[in-house]
């Protein structure tokens, strides 16, 4: 599955970043940053309710495909700006984690 599929087929909203042709190979969810740091692999779609600057550093240091902010949680404007500067893709959706997992699983991410 590619990032653009989430946007085009499932109504995810892109808040920042450009490379929507990138492939998602894994999905992971956790809100404890050093836990994510220990376990995160490249090309991951990372679901988190954290919406501060530091998620951007984690995502780019670990070469994640994108960050998904679930349940319609608002992302501060300055974080979106920073994400654009660092070219990190932030996606927003009203769905809960389980629904997001289902979409990715059914699209072959497993």
């Amino acid at each position: 599955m590619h990032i653009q599929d989430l946007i085009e087929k499932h109504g995810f909203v892109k808040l920042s970043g450009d490379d929507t042709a990138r492939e998602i190979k894994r999905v992971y969810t956790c809100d404890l940053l050093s836990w994510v740091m220990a376990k995160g692999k490249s090309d991951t779609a990372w679901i988190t309710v954290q919406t501060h600057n530091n998620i951007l550093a984690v995502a780019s240091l670990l070469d994640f495909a994108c960050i998904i902010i679930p349940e319609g949680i608002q992302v501060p404007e300055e974080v979106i700006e920073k994400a654009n500067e660092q070219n990190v893709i932030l996606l927003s959706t009203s769905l809960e984690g389980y629904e997001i997992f289902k979409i990715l699983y059914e699209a072959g991410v497993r």
Partner: protein
Amino acid sequence: MKPYMKDPANAAMKLHYEVAKDDFARAGEASSKIKSVLKQLGIEGGVLRRIAIAAYEAEINLVIHSEGGTVEAFIKPDCIELYIEDKGPGIADIDLAMTQGYSTANPAAREMGFGAGMGLPNMQKVCDDFTIESEPGEGTRIKMVVNY
């Protein structure tokens, strides 16, 4: 554990960053810069990843737990060395601090997702060589080596 010793011999490049206490807005910048320099130098992905993890956890600890300090990276022919030094408050019981799950992070930091007590164990895990020394009231020094 080897004693902490800074060894600038045959470093092809040295990077130096200041990290301020409580500066959450910029936390992660030093690690990101180190990673992007190493990437430009063509350093292999696995090494890049280990350095990124080690530098990030150390940098965040400076922001959350210390009075501020420095992150340095020496790029050598056979390895990369990271040196983290801070101005205090130091760590009284290093074995306890190294225990997975132990954290003194305050509620505000925990709300941001810090404080799992995994940073120091993560650093040690990704490094080939890990040295930590601390003097309560003085400060903490960490050296980490990742071989290619």
